């Protein structure tokens, strides 16, 4: 055990120190196109017309697609089991009829270079009929709250856990203290923005993907299902990653889009997130309101805790499903 307490040399340092690493955006493929995602500017709206003609008229634009142009399954839940009653709350790859958060992908523009793609994205005109946003999970469960989904309650699920005789402890308590506390929403800002590159091989009916680093097996399975090919025909290439912090590598709409577009267009497709985009595009989590009560005996000893929690899962159930509320109630 000579390594215990000693400083171990990292094998990756020489390449990372000399610019010889391979981060996702470091590879370009011959004939590669660049994707830009057009994102919702509003928190909640019914989508009217999406006019792509301005973008299509620009030089170098190879495709502009909205939900009307593609039939793709929604982003599935990764953590097992995948509860079927969450299906209606999953996020479509491109918004269908309604947008539910700022940053939600509405359209994609694919061009010969990233500057052209960004120009094109600026010219996609979206008609929004704005609806009241849902900003607070507790209020969202109350009567009269704006509803995010047609004929579905905002309260997606109720998770209950308990141990011990809590009711008895509260009944016999000398003191009960009740208070409301909130836990702020959090996300992560790794220094490297996300980036994905997909290349379709028509002869081999296979796909190469660079940049999906955290859960490659799950992402490969979903991409294979979307493309209708065996998982063995999707090769997920390892890359260096500029920090993960939980948000990088989940299956996001962009993972599906680059794969789908690479086959549709017959050319490699790359998407590299910019920083402002990252702040609205990756998962946010852990926004909770707690109404918590403690039962104490006459000497101030804690006998029991009761907690009612409203967990804000954002606009959709994404890949991590109900993991966070389930972990919150874990005994």
């Amino acid at each position, binding site marked *: 055990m000579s390594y215990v307490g000693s*400083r171990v*040399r*990292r094998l*990756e*340092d*020489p*390449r*990372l*120190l*000399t*610019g*010889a*690493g391979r*981060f996702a*955006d*470091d590879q*370009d493929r011959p004939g590669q196109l660049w994707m830009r995602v057009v994102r919702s500017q509003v928190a909640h709206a019914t989508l009217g017309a999406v006019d792509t003609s301005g973008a299509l008229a620009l*030089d170098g634009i190879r495709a502009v697609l909205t939900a009307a142009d593609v039939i793709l399954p929604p982003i599935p839940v990764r953590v097992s089991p995948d509860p079927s009653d969450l299906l209606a709350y999953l996020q479509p790859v491109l918004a269908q009829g309604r947008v539910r958060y700022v940053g939600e992908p509405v359209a994609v523009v694919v061009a010969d270079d*990233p*500057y052209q793609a960004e120009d094109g994205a600026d010219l996609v005109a979206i008609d929004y009929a704005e609806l009241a946003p849902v900003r607070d999970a507790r209020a969202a469960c109350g009567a009269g709250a704006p509803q995010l989904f047609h004929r579905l309650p905002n309260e997606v699920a109720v998770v209950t856990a308990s141990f011990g005789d809590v009711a008895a402890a509260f009944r016999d308590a000398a003191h009960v203290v009740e208070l409301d506390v909130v836990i702020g929403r959090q996300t992560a*800002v*790794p*220094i*490297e*923005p996300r980036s994905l590159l997909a290349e379709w091989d028509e002869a081999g009916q296979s796909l190469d993907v660079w940049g999906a680093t955290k859960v490659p097996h799950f992402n490969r399975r979903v991409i294979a299902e979307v493309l209708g090919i065996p998982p063995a025909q999707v090769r997920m290439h390892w890359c*260096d*990653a*500029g*920090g993960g*912090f939980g948000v990088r590598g989940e299956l996001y709409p962009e993972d599906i889009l680059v794969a789908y577009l690479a086959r549709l267009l017959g050319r490699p497709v790359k998407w590299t997130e*910019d*920083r402002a985009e990252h702040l609205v595009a990756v998962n946010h989590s852990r926004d909770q309101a707690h109404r918590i009560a403690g039962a104490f005996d006459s000497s101030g000893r804690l006998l029991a805790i009761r907690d009612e929690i409203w967990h804000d899962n954002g606009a959709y159930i994404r890949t991590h499903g109900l993991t966070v509320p389930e972990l919150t109630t874990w005994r």
Partner: protein
Amino acid sequence: MTDAHSIRITVNGTEHELAVEPRRTLADVLRHDLAYTGTHLGCEHGICGACTVLVDGLPARSCLMFGVQADGRSVETVEALGTPEELGPLQQAFTDHHGLQCGFCTPGFLMLITAFLRETPSPTDEEIREVVASNLCRCTGYQGILRAVRAAADDGAGS
């Protein structure tokens, strides 16, 4: 490309002549036109410093410079400092003192500090802290970087 300008840039001693759009950033020219992918883009608005290169010896955010502004100039990137087989002294100090973790911000730090130590070969700890605060590291933290710069300066990396 409708409005390309012909430019001539020397990168790490090698001269390159190429046609670029006026709006193309120096970072994109280096990374995607000339394949110097050691220069990284973390924010594209001059905050994080991952894209720092030396232009005529001075540190510059290559995301905030256009490629055409580098016409006729000499650029140094991280690839000039050493190779995986033979690290330069500052690179060696970084690995010795755990000055990197994911390594994405590292090239920017190395270029910034290279220019700093040329200008200030015997810095105080306070001066090192001041300069290192110019760039963002999200995962290692700065203590290892400070120790690495101290060690590199004490070993004469800047002279």
